[in-house]
């Protein structure tokens, strides 16, 4: 997101001048590309498996929206927490999930995070700080607020992040989450993905006014960014995460984007005008980022091609692993309704160089202390 773009938004919460965010390194930029590619290629692979009848039930992907989940989650520290939604596979990968576990979950195999108990995108790896979504939208906005409440109550400098589609903002729970987060100034970042449709329902039947405008009426900032620009999403998220961590409360970030596939694989999206799709196809987040890397950041096109091939090979390998994962034992179907003990969520990976530096710093400090 260009600084001027930010400045233009009257309700932008982020002062682009204040910034002070450690910038993205060259490696970070390649990581962002890698993660978006991993999402794209994993979902393509999954769609194939679905068409081959290997995925039971239905299939949903986030084609065209890769910049959002990748860019937003990239801002988070290991100790932060996420509730990831159904268009946001990239966020799982940012936290360290491997595609085999994603594919295994979709196929109902025991190797998926839910071990076959739940399907499609209804999972999160607790070991990576993620709480899997429920179908009911946008219930996770409240759960994320609750995670944030725990951080606030304990005085921890940690942040919760969640995602929801623009259609989900019509549900009462969205309002309850925004209102409570505003009153309590919770350290939570709400990523609103406006992909133009809720299933077949266009924006004008979902709301009369863009819901990002409501942020101020809940007592916090809201801003819109180009959801197909991974750096713009990252920059907005990083600012919001930082503010949340500093005790300055929640932020609502609208990412304008387009759902490039049907709502699910069964949906031919005949309700979407072809021109609309064509227009957005030209703004493909992966293509655009690749071009910027090649142009502005002088990454050799060969490197980008290699990256793509590396990711493809990794996804292929993961698919094999997923296919080799057994179906669950029917005996577990009636197990696990109740917990015997509470266990903490684990920390996720945080590939942004800023956190790597912090870790390195901490390790150095320790080394120093040990020495």
């Amino acid at each position, binding site marked *: 997101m260009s600084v001027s773009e930010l400045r233009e938004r009257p309700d932008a919460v982020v002062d682009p001048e204040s910034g002070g965010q450690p910038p993205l390194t060259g490696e970070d930029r390649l990581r962002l590309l890698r993660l978006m590619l991993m999402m794209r290629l994993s979902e393509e692979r999954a769609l194939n498996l679905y068409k081959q009848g290997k995925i039971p039930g239905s299939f949903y992907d986030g084609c065209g929206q890769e910049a959002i989940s990748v860019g937003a989650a990239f801002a988070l520290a290991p100790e932060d927490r996420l509730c990831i939604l159904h268009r946001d596979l990239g966020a799982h990968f940012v936290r360290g999930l491997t595609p085999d576990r994603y594919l295994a979950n979709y196929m109902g195999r025991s190797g998926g995070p839910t071990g076959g108990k739940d399907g499609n995108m209804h999972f999160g790896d607790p070991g990576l700080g993620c709480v899997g979504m429920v179908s009911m939208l946008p219930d996770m906005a409240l759960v994320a607020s609750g995670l944030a409440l725990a951080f606030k109550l304990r005085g921890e400098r940690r942040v919760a992040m969640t995602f929801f589609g623009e259609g989900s903002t019509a549900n009462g729970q969205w309002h309850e989450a925004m209102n409570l987060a505003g009153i309590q100034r919770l350290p939570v970042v709400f990523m609103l993905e406006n992909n133009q449709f809720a299933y*077949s329902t266009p924006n004008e039947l979902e709301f009369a006014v863009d819901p990002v405008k409501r942020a101020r009426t809940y007592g916090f900032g809201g801003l819109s960014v180009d959801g197909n620009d991974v750096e713009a999403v990252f920059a907005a998220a990083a600012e919001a995460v930082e503010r949340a961590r500093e005790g300055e409360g929640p932020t609502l970030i609208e990412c304008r984007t387009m759902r490039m596939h049907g709502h699910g694989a069964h949906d031919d999206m005949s309700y979407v005008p072809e021109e609309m799709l064509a227009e957005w196809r030209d703004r493909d987040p992966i293509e655009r980022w690749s071009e910027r890397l090649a142009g502005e950041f002088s990454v050799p096109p060969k490197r980008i091609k290699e990256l793509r091939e590396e990711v493809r090979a990794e996804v292929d390998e993961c698919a094999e692993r997923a296919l080799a994962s057994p179906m669950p034992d029917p005996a577990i179907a009636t197990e696990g309704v109740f917990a015997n003990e509470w266990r903490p969520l684990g920390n996720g990976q945080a590939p942004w160089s800023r956190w790597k530096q912090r870790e390195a710093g901490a390790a150095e400090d320790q080394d120093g202390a040990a020495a």
Partner: protein
Amino acid sequence: MTLGTKDQTQPIPGREAEEMGQVSPEVARMSSYLEAISDALRHEMRRDETVFCLGQDIGGFGGAFKVTDGFFEEFGAARVLDTPLAENAIIGTAVGAAIEGMKPVCEMQFADFISCGFDQLVNVAAKMHYRQGIAVPMVVRLPSGGGFSGGPFHSQNPEAWFMQAPGLKVVAPATPADAKGLLISAIRDPNPVCFLEHKGLYRAVRGEVPEGEHTVPIGEARVVRPGEEMTVITYGSALHLALRAADEIDASIEVIDLRTLVPLDREAIVASARKTGKVLIAHEATGGAGIGAEVASLISEHAFEHLDAPVRRLTAPDVPIPFSPPLERAVLPQFEDMKEACDELLSY
């Protein structure tokens, strides 16, 4: 009986009330369960201008399961109203519109989402007439049930919740003819009616459905197959398991399709239990405090002396419905479970 006064206040609707609309083969045609639902809705919308539909993606898109396919073109956006993603809004505005003389038919995209409109349903719609004498003629269509890896949020059978919310009628047809007949009756009923349509039957079940006018009275069970040695009392998807088991087992098995869950057809239930003395109650919903528990209790209370065996239940266990096929099969009653349960009861 004193207990009765506290426990069974709903009059059982007269059997003779509506004899119209029985299947008369010359005007019937083969339809799927899904087509029968669409037919009923279209029939009522053509017949009565006050009938309108509201729900998510039901307009131009024709609904997640295509029940209202073509309705938008025929009836227009106002009568096939695409709503935002807000279930309390769907049900709450339907209540208001119904009070003002409309006959709204709400579609939940999946029955599971009724949890998001629960308050308007159980507190506003259900209690309105009892409290204020204001009728609320509305229908909530609930695509329910599992068996196709819908997972914990797209497979539920929430009917027992409704039985614990007095003021709601609840129907759960198992055949295309009943789907049509009960939906028309539900739309004409001056009360809120929860219409459970099992997704697994949408395209899998076909049958003869009378063309045009066809109603099935709410509150009346159907003896689908008479028998002497035992009874299976069931509804929805489990009816089909029961009929197959009755076919395959070499014994005289009576199969009763409840069709309406509230008000329950107590007479039919008790009569059959008294007759055969052995009853299996089967449904796909979880067992604990389910419809089957109510039916079993009614039988133990009112047919005690006639029972030759314990009243058995075949239901899903009290767990969320899992996604993966082997897990889902382990949870939802299967044909083998049905057969085994019948065999066990017969040999008791």
